[in-house]
């Protein structure tokens, strides 16, 4: 139905992935880090959908569904952790949360 080369789809996924990674590496606010993680997961999911579309198989979309499920569970746990951390350390700065090192 469309004539999008698969490579372009993957390329979009790759770029989104890199942006997400940059977000994780650059942002110190833990909320942004979590958002960036969502971007990375989502870009990988996108790559699966692209690949599934190439082979006309449902598998890509199914893995996408799995990824969405995992992302939801992960955000739930992640935000609960952030909430506890904010409650006890009064900051969202990920760099401040470095009691352990060395």
């Amino acid at each position, binding site marked *: *139905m*469309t*004539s*999008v*080369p*698969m*490579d*372009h*789809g993957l*390329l*979009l996924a*790759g*770029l*989104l*992935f*890199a*942006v*997400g*990674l*940059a*977000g994780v*590496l*650059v942002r*110190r*606010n833990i*909320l*942004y880090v979590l*958002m*960036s993680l*969502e*971007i990375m997961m*989502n870009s990988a999911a*996108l790559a699966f959908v*692209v*690949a*599934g*579309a*190439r082979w006309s*198989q*449902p*598998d*890509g*979309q*199914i893995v996408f*569904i799995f990824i*969405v*499920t*995992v992302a*939801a*569970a*992960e*955000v*739930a746990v992640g*935000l*609960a952790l952030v*909430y*506890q951390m*904010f409650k*006890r350390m009064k900051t*969202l700065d990920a760099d401040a949360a470095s009691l352990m090192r060395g």
Partner: protein
Amino acid sequence: MTIAFYVASAVALFATLMVVTRRNPVHAVLYLMVSLLAVAVVFFTLGAHFAAALEVIIYAGAIIVLFVFMIMLLNIGPPPSTRQESLLLTPGIWVGPSALSVLLAGLFLYVILAGGRSVQAGSYVDAKTVGISMFEIYFLGVELASMILLAGLVGAYHLGKRDLPDEAEGGNG
């Protein structure tokens, strides 16, 4: 539809860039939503309608709401916290990591494009096919995915719960 793919891609990329550069978390979350919706459009153009629908419902619908909820709960609104964000984003902090990401993006580019053949990725796979496959071949995966949600639930419940009377604040575990 081809044009729609490229437009949506451009929107998604732009919105995502905005997410990681915003100082106001509410703005970032809104951009994230835009990005996810744009990706949903991409899915649609690739013929993955079911995935497109799920992307809107679960990602844009549920997960984003969770983030917004958390921002409200932690009460990190505009002025003071955005100023704080600026402090956290000095060039010294972002130049190195960004360079690393750019390098990696370049490598991805090379890997994906090198020796490329133009294979089309745009065949329609309808929800029925997905559903059948999901409950025939991948039914174990579905079962396990439910366990994942359960684990997330139990974990989030335990971590998010208020302290019990005998749990001392800041006490060591």
